C-alpha cells in the first residue's frame, strides 16, 4: 500500500518524465500494450468467440437451406434461401402455443416467487419472533439438493392433488424449489434498509404491513428484478419438471415441444434447425436488449446465494 504514494514521485525524482500512472492496472495495462500482446489478445478472443458463435450461426443459416444443401455445405450461406422453413413454423399454431405455455408458466412462477419469498423474507429481516432463525435454516435446506432427488414423490404428490398436466402443477414445485435462494437474496437486501426508516415509519403510525407495502417494496426494485430474472430464466429453460408433470402436447413449454418436434422430423435437420433458431430467438433478443440486468442478475443471484 505504501508503494501507492511513492508511485508518482519516484520517476520524477530520477529526472525522468513522469509517466501517466496506470488508471486501471491489471494483468494487462492497456496503454502500454505492445503489438505482440495486442495480437495475442485479439487472436485468442476472436478464436474463442468463433467457437461459441459458429454452432449458433450454422444453426440459424441451416434453417434456410434444403436438406441436400445442408448435407453438402453445412457451412456458409444457403444456395437458395428457403424462407418457407421459417415461415411455415411461424404460421403454425404450434410454435406460438409452446412459447405461450412457457411464458405463462414463467410469469406465474415469477409472480408467485416474488410475492411469497418477499413476504417471508420480510418477516425474517424485520420481525423478531421465537424460532425465527430455525425457520430460516429450514428454508435454506432447499439450497442443498436439486429437484431431481425428490422427483418421484413430487410426481405422486402432484398426481394426488389432481394437478398433473396443469400449469399450476409445474408452477408450484418450481416456486417451492426457488424459495430458499429467493428468501436469502431478499432478506439480505431488506436488512440493509436503514433502521431509521423503520423507526420513522412507526412514529407516523405505520404498521408492519404498511411498512412492507409503502416502504420496503418501492425500495426493493433492484432485488425484485434480480430474483425475477433468476426465476424467469430458470422457468423459461426448465425441462425436467414439465417433462414429468405434463403429458399433453398442448401444454408443453418450448424445451419439451422442441424435443417432440425433433422426434417427429428426426432427420429433416433443416426444419429442426429452423425450429431451434426460432425458439431461442426470444431468449437472444431479450438477452441483448437487457444484457446488463440479465448478466448482473444471474451472476449476483449465484454469488450472493
Amino acid at each position: 500500500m505504501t508503494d501507492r504514494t511513492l508511485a508518482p514521485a519516484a520517476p520524477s525524482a530520477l529526472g525522468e518524465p513522469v509517466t501517466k500512472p496506470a488508471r486501471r492496472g491489471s494483468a494487462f495495462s492497456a496503454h502500454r500494450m505492445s503489438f505482440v500482446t495486442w495480437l495475442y489478445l485479439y487472436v485468442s478472443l476472436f478464436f474463442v468467440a468463433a467457437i461459441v458463435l459458429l454452432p449458433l450461426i450454422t444453426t440459424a443459416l441451416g434453417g434456410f437451406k434444403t436438406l441436400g444443401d445442408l448435407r453438402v455445405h453445412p457451412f456458409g450461406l444457403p444456395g437458395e434461401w428457403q424462407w418457407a422453413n421459417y415461415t411455415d413454423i411461424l404460421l403454425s399454431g404450434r410454435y406460438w402455443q409452446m412459447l405461450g405455455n412457457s411464458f405463462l408458466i414463467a410469469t406465474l412462477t415469477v409472480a408467485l416467487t416474488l410475492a411469497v419469498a418477499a413476504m417471508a423474507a420480510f418477516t425474517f429481516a424485520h420481525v423478531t419472533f421465537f424460532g425465527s432463525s430455525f425457520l430460516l435454516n429450514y428454508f435454506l435446506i432447499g439450497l442443498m439438493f436439486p429437484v431431481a432427488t425428490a422427483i418421484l414423490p413430487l410426481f405422486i404428490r402432484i398426481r394426488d392433488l389432481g394437478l398433473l398436466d396443469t400449469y399450476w402443477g409445474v408452477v408450484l414445485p418450481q416456486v417451492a424449489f426457488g424459495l430458499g435462494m429467493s428468501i436469502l437474496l431478499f432478506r439480505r437486501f431488506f436488512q440493509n434498509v436503514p433502521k431509521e426508516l423503520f423507526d420513522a415509519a412507526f412514529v407516523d403510525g405505520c404498521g408492519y404491513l404498511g411498512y412492507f407495502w409503502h416502504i420496503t417494496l418501492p425500495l426493493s426494485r433492484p432485488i425484485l428484478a434480480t430474483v425475477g430474472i433468476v426465476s424467469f430464466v430458470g422457468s423459461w429453460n426448465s425441462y425436467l419438471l414439465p417433462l414429468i408433470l405434463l403429458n399433453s402436447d398442448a401444454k408443453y413449454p418450448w424445451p419439451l415441444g422442441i424435443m417432440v418436434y425433433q422426434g417427429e422430423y428426426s432427420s429433416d435437420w433443416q426444419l429442426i434447425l429452423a425450429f431451434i433458431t426460432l425458439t431461442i430467438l426470444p431468449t437472444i433478443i431479450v438477452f441483448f436488449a437487457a444484457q446488463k440486468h440479465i448478466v448482473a442478475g444471474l451472476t449476483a443471484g449465484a454469488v450472493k446465494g
Partner: protein
Amino acid sequence: MSSAISAVSTGRRMGIQGKLPVLILFLPPALLLFTLFVILPMGEAAWYSFYDWNGYGIPEKFIGFKNFETLWRTSAFATALGNNFLIILVSIVIQLPLALWLATMVSNRIPGAVVFRLIFFMPYVLADVAAGLIWRFVYDGDYGLFAAIASMFNVAAPYVLADRHLAIYAVLAVIVWKYFGFHMMLFIAGLQNIDKSYYEAAEIDGASRWQRFRNITLPLLAPTIRLSVFFSVVGSLQLFDMIMPLTGGGPSNSTQTMVTFLYSYGITRMKVGFGSAIGVVLFIICVTLAFGYRRIFMRND
C-alpha cells in the same frame, strides 16, 4: 426530545402488537409451499426407497435395503457416478483455467471487451435442451459440421455421439462450451474487487505479467475460484437437460449422469421405490459435498 423518544417507544409497542398479523399473513404461504413440495417429497423419497412400489395404492411391499443393493450392483450407476466426477474434473482442469484466462483478458478496458463478454456469456442463457440439440447437429455424421470437416480431409465422418468411447468427451465439450461464460463472469466480478493499487505497486517493482498474475490475482481471487468450483460440483450433480437431446444417456449407458440414470431407470419404468433410492443417494452425495466443501474450503468466505 423526550416526547420523540416516547413516540418511538410507543411505536415499538405498536409494532409488537402488529407482529401477529404479519406472522400469520406473511410466513404460511412460503412455509406451506416449501413443506409440501420440497421437504415432504424428500422425506417420502427416503420412505419409498425401502419399498417395491409402482406408484399406485399404498406402498406395502417392504424390501429393506434391497433397492440400494440393486443400485450398487447396476453397472450403469457406477458409470453415471464416474461421469459425474469426470464432469467435475473437466470443469476444474479445463473450464476453470479457460474462464479465468478469458476473464483476465476481457476485464480490461480494451475495445470490444463488452461485446466479447456478452458473446461468451450467451451460451449460458440458452436452454440446455437447445444447446444439446444444436450440438447434436454439429456432431451429426451425415449433415453436421463434423461431417463437413471430415469430408474436407477426405476421411469417413465419425459418428461421435454413437461411439461409446467418444460420446462422453463430446458431451464434456458441450458442457464447457455452455458454462465457461458463466464462470468467466464470476471471475470478472472477482477481478473487479481487487484493489488496483496492488498492480500499480507490482508494476513499479518490475513484476512481470505472469508474476503479477501468480502473486496478486490468483491469491486474491481464491474465494471466487472456490465458488466457481462449488458451482461446477452442484451443476454436475444435476446435469440432465443437456444429456437428453445429445445422447439420452446412451450409447449403452456410457453418458449417463446420476439424474439421467434416475430418469431412465426410475421414472420411465415407474419404479418409485428404486427411483427414490437413487434420489436418496443423490441427496446424500449433494449434502455431504455441500457441507464438506463449505466446511473445508469456504469457511472464511
